[in-house]
């Protein structure tokens, strides 16, 4: 019985440690994941939210990508996937992934992490684009 008791302490211990790790892990590293519309609405409501790091998913505005060769600074504009009128500019200071293509022929969905600076430009720390293997064209696009 004594052994069983000790054993239970061990089991509860493992569960407690894992729960603690997950709990603190989430609260220390979590990010809000928003659409541009949600993010802008949230900032209008609560201006301090501007300084909170967030993850945003949106779509690249065609022909908005500019970069200064050699300086590694990329600037582009993102709009909400569902509402093209909601846009904001982005700045990113690292090499872009290959999947990032600014071309009128395709829709590029972008997921970024970062925050707005004083000038209202979204400073991205990471830029991911939607994985190509899951990009499937509609029949109409194949007609050409």
């Amino acid at each position, binding site marked *: 019985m004594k052994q069983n008791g000790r054993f239970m302490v061990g089991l509860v211990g493992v569960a407690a440690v894992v729960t603690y790790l997950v709990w603190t892990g989430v609260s220390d590293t*979590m990010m809000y994941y928003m659409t541009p519309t949600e993010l802008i609405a949230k900032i209008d409501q609560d201006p301090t939210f501007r300084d909170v790091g967030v993850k945003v998913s949106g779509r690249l505005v065609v022909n908005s990508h500019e970069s200064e060769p050699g300086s590694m600074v990329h600037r582009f504009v993102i709009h909400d996937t569902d509402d093209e009128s909601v846009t904001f500019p982005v700045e990113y200071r690292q090499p872009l992934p290959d999947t990032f293509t600014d071309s009128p022929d395709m829709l590029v969905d972008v997921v970024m992490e970062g925050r707005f600076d004083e000038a209202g430009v979204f400073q991205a720390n990471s830029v991911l684009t939607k994985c190509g293997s899951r990009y499937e*064209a509609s029949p109409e696009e*194949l007609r050409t």
Partner: protein
Amino acid sequence: MNVLGELALWIALPVSLFGMVLGFAGGRARRGDLTLSAERSVYAVFFLSVIASLGVVDTFLNDRFEYWYVANYSSRNLETFFKVSGLWAGQRGSLLFWLLLLSCFAAIAVFSNRKKNREFMPYVAGTLLTITSFFLVVLLFADVNPFEKLTFTPADGSGLNPQLQNYWMTIHPPTLYLGFTAFTVPFAFAVAALLNGRLDARWIVITRKWTLLSWFFLSNGIIFGMRWAYEELGWGGYWFWDPVENASLLPWLTATAFLHSIQIQENRGMLKVWNMGLVILTFLLTIFATFLTRSGLIESVHTFAQELKIAYIFLGFMSSILMVGLVLVLYRLPRLKSDNQIESFLSRESAFVFNNLILLGATFAVLWGTLLPLISEGLTGQEIAVGPPFFNRVNLPIGLALLALMGIGPVIAWRRASRRNLVRNFLRPVSVGLATMLGLWIGGARHAMALVTFGLAAFVMTIIVVEFWKGTRARARIEGEGAFKAFLHLIARNRRRWGGYIVHVGVVVIFTAFAAAPWYQEFLQTLEPGEVMVAESPLGHTYELTYEGLSTNIRDLERNLDWQVTALVSVQRDGEPLGTFTTEKRMHMNAEQMSTEVGIQSFPLEDLYIILADADLGRILQGDAAAQSVTFTVMVKPLVGWIWAGGLILTLGSLIAMWPSAERLRTASSTGRAGMSGAEALPTGD
């Protein structure tokens, strides 16, 4: 062939459903004729899946772009090799491919048990056919039929994503799928055991090789995926905690737990409910992984709507399995009682239970982190996401605890470990571990977690080496054999145990490789031709990279290239020339995006990784001689090669453990009793 292929799918569904009913009915009525028909249905479904798969391959090889699937994943000038692999390139084909592998394994399971274990077979066939029926329903009714036609015939297909045109990417998904589908067999035997009431270790003995086979494929599939990411994605990493990667890790974690806990049921007659739970959970996670890999459910909730139908079918199927599993386990609960109790906190049973709890803890943490966006959106309306920092933070201590148990488990005594047992077995390995940490600390290594990992790795390796040494010495003395012969015979005599230890060696090597991550170095620099950049390695080497210049290759029809920009870099290591490396950006014909090819030079202790990060491609492709400056990312990554080496060791170990041995086949029917006497008789491997 294509028409025949689609027809085969439509025939397979009724055959599969009918066989399923016959199987369960045959089991209930104890009628061998019905069981036989069910088993023949399994063969028939396999045959029909082969026809359907050949049909899809045929549409690819003949450029039948009127088929939606071919139009989306192939093009005229795609290499034949990749046309064949088109079968699993996209969602539709891979669901059929899943069915093909599943029905193949089902047929093997039925065939190999045609003369034995007959009391399980009606339910096994019934369960297997339930799963094949599910995939047939999905293929035919969830808008994912690979034989769906367009209303017109495009002149050419849109081509295969260039990142998928890679050797590793071609073998990585099938290997994972082999792992996922192989686990259906243990699940089917578990369900059969619950239904026919034979709840001793028999079903586990029958299926333990299947479990190991599944685990073997899962491990390799995951490692191939890492290799692909490392070579092809051009970021210099190999694991990103992406939902799709996590999905393949989850069943691996629970299958690993199951492989360990079945030994307790075999040897001590305990944890019966727990093992049932694990086998059901692992099977559910393989289905979940297939679903997640091919639906984009997590990646962004906004794309969910497109896949609604298939998502509901999958979720419905998974909850049915969960419910049926729960009901069956509750129904059989009285017969799933343990034969024994855990006697001591310090025992091998206890170490195995902790191993299981920790693996499940990791499963829970990874699942939670992966599903958090969905859960938070559902509960609060606000999506919350966590990334690699979360997963690394949570899994690091979990991994360390597992590593420690990997050393403790093999040498701690069953039932109750004495103080003498502990001192005798652990004094030396613990000292070696501590000495390793001290040595590395003196050598300048300062990352606490990495030091602990290296120390634990040394501890585990010492234990394994001592075990091999003791076994070999004993055998050499008793049998009068030479050391090498004794060593080989030792392994051959108990393949499962020693194979398991070799797998542990592989895992330790991989963990050691992970622990080197804090020392990864990255250098970013823009160079003109002739300029040099320097990369310092944490091991004290100096790499000097000279940018020699660019070459371009435009519209190379033979190689299917729209354009290709290659940077030439010559490298010296500590003043010794290593040769010239290339790194390039290229655009394939019909491709939507360019791809980067990296230059990698591997040494035993570190990799040099050269990426063409940025260049003014527009001007370069116009032939502007002034636009030759290129930005390079150069990484020095210690011990990355050890991941692949560890993977090979792990493969070797699992092959040894799986290899059929005449001896074991003979004794298989007599094991499964609880409380065997004499520690020597206990199979104690992985």
